């Protein structure tokens, strides 16, 4: 079974600063990886996804993530954070078979003006 860890529970950055949110997964086969964002009182919205091919994936809202198989990581990055990026971010891994999507515990992002 797959698992996901997000080492940082809460991160605070200043507006305009760069951002990196960490995600590590455990899965024996080729993983399918996702980043979702959840604003307060809202559902989860897909930011980006990785299935295969280019390991640097571009998403919405200026986010990107890089898949590193050797490190079992799929870290999310943004070069310049906006105040509207304050939210909860979830990394998820989907199995090659079946429908078991496993979500990490989430990282809450706060943005200082």
């Amino acid at each position: 079974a797959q698992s996901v860890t997000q080492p940082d529970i809460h991160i605070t950055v200043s507006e305009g600063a760069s951002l990196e949110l960490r995600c590590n997964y455990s899965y024996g086969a080729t993983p399918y990886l996702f980043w979702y964002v959840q604003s307060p009182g809202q559902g989860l919205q897909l930011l980006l996804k990785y299935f295969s091919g280019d390991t640097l994936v571009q998403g919405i809202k200026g986010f990107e993530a890089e898949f590193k198989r050797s490190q079992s990581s799929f870290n999310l990055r943004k070069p310049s954070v906006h105040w509207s990026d304050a939210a909860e971010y979830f990394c998820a891994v989907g199995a090659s078979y079946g429908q078991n999507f496993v979500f990490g515990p989430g990282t809450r992002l706060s943005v200082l003006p």
Partner: protein
Amino acid sequence: DAGVIQSPRHEVTEMGQEVTLRCKPISGHDYLFWYRQTMMRGLELLIYFNNNVPIDDSGMPEDRFSAKMPNASFSTLKIQPSEPRDSAVYFCASRDGTSGSFVGRGGELFFGEGSRLTVL
């Protein structure tokens, strides 16, 4: 497309009462999932359906919880009787398992806005 639609958005009830949460998946999606989100346990998969058939309900906490999908456009999650520890946000999600970019195994999960349940 209207997206995944859940109702009610908020429900406050008293312990022992029956609670029914509703979900309308995205048209054409053949998988439907029910998740529960709490501070302590994060996002937990409760049950999922494929073509209206329950496939895996191992995440359903106990017999007080039941879920049905009578047709492709409607699902319910019922709690009877409800308890304070059931207080959480319940999300419905759907996906297309037959096409999309998921290497031939369908697309990503699309989530509704959730139903926040408070049991007093």
